[in-house]
């Protein structure tokens, strides 16, 4: 994360080092990804101990600002901060001044007055994390903005792939489903390119983004060649009424749903959750031993620990670093 995007830092007086944000996978280099995966790995081994809390970020404040519903991402960011001993403050749009029509800028500046070290933001609108980075002094981590980016999801998926399949370079992943509305697909595509994973996007015609530079097909048979099938959720909440992306979910399930007979024996399946069982994924697939969904959730915790650690300290956590932290 050395060349993290600097947002209007040139307008600030000289002094503190540039803030490190994680707004998009596009901000990362291959080395950054490698370092984050290694850091997560170190934390992973620490989580096997009886006492799982590390004092690493003691005294730091992590604010979680969630404008969209979330189970996995919000709980894992909160737990990640707590496992690293940071103070956390979680704000959901429902029940806050957002209900009273407060603008994102005002809410961000209000929370900014508590001098948070990190603001983690999820928002339905593209560009919201950029705005928070512009109007506060905190390090900003994008926990999903509209259809744009979900960088920690892509990182945890890389982590999962490395745990399960070893070497990343040369792998082939088929990403199937509602690519058009998927921030996960966009983040994955960039992350896969960074580490040398071949990616094939499979979707109905109207759900393949026009102009995207990627291998794209409407033919579900294309998943056969892949090492891993990554299933996307049909995001009905992001589809405008009457848009007719597909004639019906029934027809979608019949044509593009991931069923046991569409998979090779032992072919791994991933899904970012929440799943629509019976739509994009057959329940028999979702519950099979080849589905890596729970591995992904656990990876989410350690990756978010690594990201918080990385934006705040600017470096990898080595064995020595961890030992010193434990002494402290």
């Amino acid at each position, binding site marked *: 994360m050395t060349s993290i995007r600097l947002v209007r830092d040139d307008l600030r007086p000289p002094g503190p080092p540039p803030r490190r944000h994680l707004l998009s996978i596009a901000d990362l280099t291959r080395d950054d990804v490698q370092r984050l995966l290694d850091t997560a790995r170190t934390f992973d081994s620490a989580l096997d101990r009886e006492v799982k809390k590390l004092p690493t970020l003691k005294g730091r404040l992590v604010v979680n600002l969630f404008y969209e519903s979330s189970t996995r991402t919000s709980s894992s960011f909160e737990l990640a901060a707590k496992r690293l001993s940071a103070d956390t403050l979680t704000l959901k749009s429902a029940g806050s001044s957002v209900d009273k029509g407060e603008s994102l800028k005002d809410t961000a500046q209000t929370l900014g007055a508590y001098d948070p070290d990190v603001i983690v933001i999820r928002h339905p*609108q*593209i560009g*919201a994390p950029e705005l928070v980075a512009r*109007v506060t002094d905190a390090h900003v981590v994008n926990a999903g903005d*509209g259809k*744009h980016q979900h960088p920690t999801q892509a990182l945890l998926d890389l982590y999962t792939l490395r745990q399960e399949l070893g070497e990343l370079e040369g792998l082939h992943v088929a990403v199937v489903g509602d690519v058009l509305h998927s921030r996960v697909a966009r983040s994955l595509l960039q992350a896969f390119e960074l580490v040398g994973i071949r990616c094939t996007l499979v979707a109905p015609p109207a759900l393949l983004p*026009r102009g995207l530079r990627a291998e794209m097909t409407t033919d579900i048979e294309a998943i056969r060649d892949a090492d891993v099938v990554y299933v996307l959720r049909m995001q009905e909440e992001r589809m*405008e009424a009457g848009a007719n992306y597909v004639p019906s979910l029934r027809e979608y399930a019949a044509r593009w749903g991931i069923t046991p007979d569409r998979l090779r024996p032992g072919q791994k399946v991933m899904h970012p959750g929440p799943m629509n069982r019976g739509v994009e994924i057959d329940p028999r697939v979702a519950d099979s031993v080849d589905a890596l969904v729970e591995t992904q959730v656990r990876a989410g915790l350690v990756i978010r620990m690594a990201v918080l650690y990385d934006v705040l300290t600017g470096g990898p956590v080595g064995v020595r670093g961890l030992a010193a932290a434990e002494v402290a």
Partner: protein
Amino acid sequence: MLHAKHRNGEDIVIRGARVLDPVEQIDAMLDVRIDGGTVAAVGERLDTNAHRVVDATGLVLAPAFVDPHVHLRTPGREDEETIGSGTAAAAAGGYCAILAMPNTDPVLDSAATLGTLVETAGREAEVAVGFLAAITRGQRGEKLTEMAELADAGAVAFSDDGVPVASAGMMRRALQYASITGRKLALHCEERSLSHDGHVHEGTVAAELGLHGYPSVAESVMVERDLALAGYEGQPVHLLHLSSAESVAALRRARDEGLAASAEVTPHHLVLTEEAVRSLDPNVKMNPPLRSAEDRTALLAALKDGAIECIATDHAPHALHEKDVPFEAAPFGVTGLETAFAVLHTHLVRPGALPLSTLVERMSAGAARVYGLDRPRVAVGAAANLVLLDLDREWTVDARSFRSRSRNSWLLGERLTGAVAMTIARGAVAFEA
């Protein structure tokens, strides 16, 4: 049809400028004498009499600019712009005349509303301003405005800018009825069932960022429809803010077939492409959106050869708090009056992509021709509507220096070369750097 506050014509001698009027075919080092606001002499070593002498050595003197497409936000959003502030911004940009669009609140769709605007312009306007009236009442696309009365009250033309006329039948009726007024229809071409929810051009950048796309075909399909209807009715039309290569091709075909179709293009579509959207800066969000490099090339070629006759800023002021939101939530539109010449000079003329004389023609005579207005010119007997340009001056765009009430410029902090040194409008100095 144009209105401004009264100013006494001034006596000025401009000395030693490079006088450039492409239509009058003048490009020479000359003096220009203005007597009581009228150009009285153009020649070498003119007497100064008791006139104010402006030393214009090293500067270019050209016909002042005419902007055919400005949003003055009055009535309704005077916090964003007023006739006074918008025309002051125009003066600072070298304009002697601007045309305001009717998508205000309330919409300019009655002679009564037009009357109050004309009255305000007579008190406040720093340079001449003309008003377009709506094609349909409330721009709702359901019922024609009383075009004859509006034309009598001074409407320059008719437009539902910002809201396309969705129904082809309604567009046909508008073309038929407008013919009795002698005023043109100025059309915002957008097929909403293709563009709706779209924030940026449907292309690689939108696909990568996840922004809902607003495809080129959403514009060109409507351009084709409106040109077909205009051809069928034998009526002239003006196409607002073209953005795509397909639209340019359709315009060329119609003009080749003899249709009286004209078009305008904005500075941002001539300089930027969809790549600018990667910044997610709400100040590069506009309608129509920034398009591909190929589209930009087609627009520039059409501007150069005259298929596109004029440059329009589509100056669209927005309150700071409305633009200081996530990209996706931001309204469309950017300001442009105070930077148009400088940015086009910097990015098109200096690199050799567009001759200075063509830029001057498209910023001045072009729009006047489209709407049948008096053409600003350097000619004895003409009212002095002139701009002095300092082509070498470098400056940084700073919101604090804007005369506009809004600061949603896509050029904040940019370094530009070329500046307006003085604007003379209707025979009086309206701006001086």
